[in-house]
């Protein structure tokens, strides 16, 4: 099966805004599942609420579009009821980092065998661009009109600290690296977390001096600092600029996990 066979063609075209990063990310995820050779009838996509959570609606497999923040809790039930199923969750910075934060840390702690793709567009896109716990300090949203005054979460650090077996971060620009990371996450037993920073031209970019879609993609390209380079910078006592963020693989380990079919 190729990537395109995974799409629910009668649901296309999608309702994402033109220039949205979500489409590229779904492509990468479907590329990864088809590369691995999983079948449609043994894979389930689960999501919460938000633009990212629309994704399972465009995919042929069984899916659950659940309540806001609860995708991981629903997925835990599905996985424990039938550990033979492969479970992939689409979520976003608001869905996972805010309202669903508790489920996230406990799924990491249990290290349950799920793969979570968190599309981080820095705001609540679907409801019109309100600030989320991932809105970078000083960046604008409809509820932080002069810039966010709270510090954002680092979801990858959180996942590592809480015990996930696989954690990486890429962006919608890094499609090759992202596809590899998703593949690695899918193949890792236990909890896998892949954060993807993505452009949201409608609700984030235009409020933050990134007027064109390409401006936002270049921003992601230019400000991504590889994990290894960041380590070297730290050794030299250097710091990241306020726009820079770290990408790469943060952990790949084999702590005992839950929900793995034996």
């Amino acid at each position, binding site marked *: 099966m190729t990537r395109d066979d995974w799409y629910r063609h009668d649901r296309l075209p999608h309702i994402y805004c033109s220039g949205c990063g979500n489409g590229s990310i779904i492509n990468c995820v479907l590329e990864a599942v088809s590369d691995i050779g999983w079948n449609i009838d043994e894979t389930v996509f689960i999501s919460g*609420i938000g633009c990212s959570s629309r994704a399972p609606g465009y995919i042929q497999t069984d899916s659950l579009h659940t*309540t806001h923040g609860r995708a991981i809790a629903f997925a835990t039930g599905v996985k424990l009821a039938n550990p033979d199923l492969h479970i992939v969750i689409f979520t976003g910075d608001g869905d996972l980092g805010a*309202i669903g*934060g508790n489920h996230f840390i406990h799924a990491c702690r249990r290290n349950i065998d799920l793969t979570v793709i968190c599309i981080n567009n820095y705001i609540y896109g679907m*409801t*019109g661009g309100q600030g989320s716990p991932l809105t970078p300090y000083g960046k604008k949203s409809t*509820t*932080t*009109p002069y810039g966010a005054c709270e510090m954002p979460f680092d979801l990858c650090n959180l996942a590592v600290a809480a015990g996930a077996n696989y954690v990486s971060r890429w962006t919608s620009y890094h499609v090759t690296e992202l596809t590899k990371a998703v593949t690695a996450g899918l193949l890792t037993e236990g909890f896998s977390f892949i954060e993807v920073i993505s452009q949201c031209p409608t609700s984030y970019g235009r409020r933050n001096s990134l007027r064109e879609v390409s401006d936002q993609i270049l921003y992601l390209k230019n400000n991504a600092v590889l994990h290894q380079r960041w380590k070297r910078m730290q050794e030299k006592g250097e710091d990241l600029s306020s726009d820079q963020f770290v990408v790469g693989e943060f952990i790949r380990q084999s702590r005992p996990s839950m929900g793995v079919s034996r």
Partner: protein
Amino acid sequence: MLQIMEGSHAVAEAVKLCRPDVIAAYPITPQTHIVERLADMVADGELDSEYICVESEFSALSACLGASAAGSRVYSATSSQGLLLMAEVCFNVAGMRQPVVMSIANRAVGAPLSIWNDQQDSISLRDAGWFQWYAEDAQEISDFHFLAYKVAEDNNVLLPGFICFDGFILSHTYEPVDIPDQESVSAFLPPYHPVIQLDATDPMTMGMYATPDYYMEFRYEIDKAMTQSAIALRKAGSEFKEHFGRDYGELIEEYRLSDADFAFVALGSVCGTIKDAVDEMRKDGKKVGLLKIRSYRPFPAEEIKKALSGIPLVAIIEKNLSIGSRMKGAVGLEVKDAINDSGVCVYSYIIGLGGRDIRKLHIRGVYEEAMKGNGDTFYGLREELL
């Protein structure tokens, strides 16, 4: 002065004039424009409030409860799933007798997911101990906020309240609205002076265990306070008329009912459509009228009985579904109980769920069904989908 504005912005303007000390809210369609506008006002220094961007609706109402217990006037807004996520806190706010005011842009409840309007969300929380008022238009929504703080903070009441209005239909449409000035609002609604509040110099606790020896009396007091809120609302409504000219002295509104032999009963924006339908049907010689219920909690049973006395046929337009109940609609049950006359036919019609449009022709259709004796049923189902 009349200004053309979006319903949500009329809410935000009214809330600003009520000068809440703390606002906490979480984004959910179709409520979001209200709190976005309030966030702007706070950021621009027009409104001296703490605005908290919380991480869920549960946190929003919890933060409001805490702030209210500490003696502040507080505000939040939500819809649908957000309100249901708050359900646990809603009962706590009422139980701790905190006069929180919250706007509800009414929206259907999932699953399946729907962002469109009906009134299932707030009606599902009818027993939480919050008063619930339903607005017909942007002016009512806006005015209800001044009244709500006044009634909620009344020492004989001390209960929280929902101001309910139909999502999108009222929240996202533009209408002329009279927004009063600060001076006149402050004259009507003085600053909040709580009778009880958390105070480190005189410690107290709220929400602790009430053993079986005490619990029932707490619940009794809440119910009594809800009854009191009807009296407080009538008083505040008449006072409101003296200040602003618009009369909210009654918990119901009668439209062409005095000589009617058929009455519609409804809550919210659909009352506007029904009034137009009533006018048209009157031209055709049908003696129909409308009873609009402004306050669903407290439920004005006596007034409803009086307003509908002598009318043999009553049709409730219900934007909610009480699954498993014989009448199917939550409002109809109570209207029937209020009339308490087996000689009167009272029918519920479940209509317009999940945002399906309700037009004048549907109101006529309901009339025709009622005349045929078909009631306590859904109206407008797409049979081809069943």
